[in-house]
C-alpha cells in the first residue's frame, strides 16, 4: 500500500528551532506484515530524512541467525492515506528499525503489529483483499 514517512513532529520542531530545513516527506510502498512485531523502514528512506537514531531495539529475523541483534531505532511519522474524502491514518511519532529489503520486493517498509495495534485489519483471503480501518 502507499504510505508516507516523515520526520516525527518533535524532530520537526527541533529542526525549526535549530533553523535547519525540515526534510520533505518521503512517499513509499509499505507492506502490512502481521509477522513483524515492529515496523521497519529502508535505510535509504531514513537517510532522505537525515535521521539519527533515538533508540536501540533487540531484533530477531530469519536473517540474523539464532541470536537477536541490537538495531538502531528511529522516530518517524507515518501517514497512510485513506479513501478519498476520509481522514488518513497518521502516527506522528512511531519507532521503526532500519532494515534493507530486496529491491525486487517492491516495498520500502514493513508495517508491523506495533502500528497495526491502532487499526482493525480484516483479511478476506477468498476474495483476495484486505481492509485497514483506523
Amino acid at each position, binding site marked *: 500500500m502507499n504510505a508516507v514517512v516523515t520526520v516525527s513532529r518533535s524532530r520537526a520542531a527541533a529542526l525549526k528551532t535549530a533553523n535547519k530545513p525540515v526534510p520533505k516527506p518521503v512517499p513509499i510502498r509499505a507492506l502490512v506484515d502481521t509477522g513483524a512485531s515492529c515496523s521497519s523502514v529502508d535505510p535509504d528512506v531514513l537517510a532522505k530524512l537525515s535521521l539519527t537514531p533515538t533508540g536501540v531495539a533487540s531484533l530477531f529475523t530469519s536473517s540474523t541467525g539464532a541470536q537477536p541483534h541490537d538495531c538502531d531505532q528511529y*522516530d518517524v511519522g507515518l501517514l497512510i492515506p485513506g479513501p478519498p474524502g476520509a481522514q488518513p491514518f497518521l502516527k506522528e511519532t512511531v519507532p521503526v528499525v532500519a532494515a534493507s529489503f530486496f529491491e525486487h520486493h517492491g516495498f520500502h517498509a514493513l508495517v508491523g503489529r506495533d502500528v497495526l495495534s491502532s487499526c482493525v485489519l480484516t483479511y478476506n483471503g477468498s476474495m483476495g483483499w484486505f481492509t485497514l480501518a483506523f
Partner: protein
Amino acid sequence: MSDDKPDTVLKRGGLLKEDLAFYNRNLPEWGEHEGKYALIHGAQLFDFYDSYEDAIKVGYAEFGLTPFLVKQVHMVEQVQFVSRLVAPELAGV
C-alpha cells in the same frame, strides 16, 4: 556529542553506545519503572515517561538534535521479531 556534521547522511554506529551502556548498568535498579520509557542523554538519566511519544518530545525539546536514547524499561529485554527475510541495520553498540 555535537551535531555539527551535515544532516545529509544516515548517521549511525555507536552514537548511543554510552547511553545504552548506562541503561544496561542501571536497569537492575529500575524495576519500579517497568514499562515506562527512560530518556537518557550523555550517559545520564533525564526522567521516565509513560509513553514513547512523551519521551521523544521531551528529548528533542531538551537536547535538540544531539543524540539521546529512549528505551522502554524491561527487566527482561523484549526481543522484536520479523519473520520476513530482511537485512537489519545493526547498531554499532
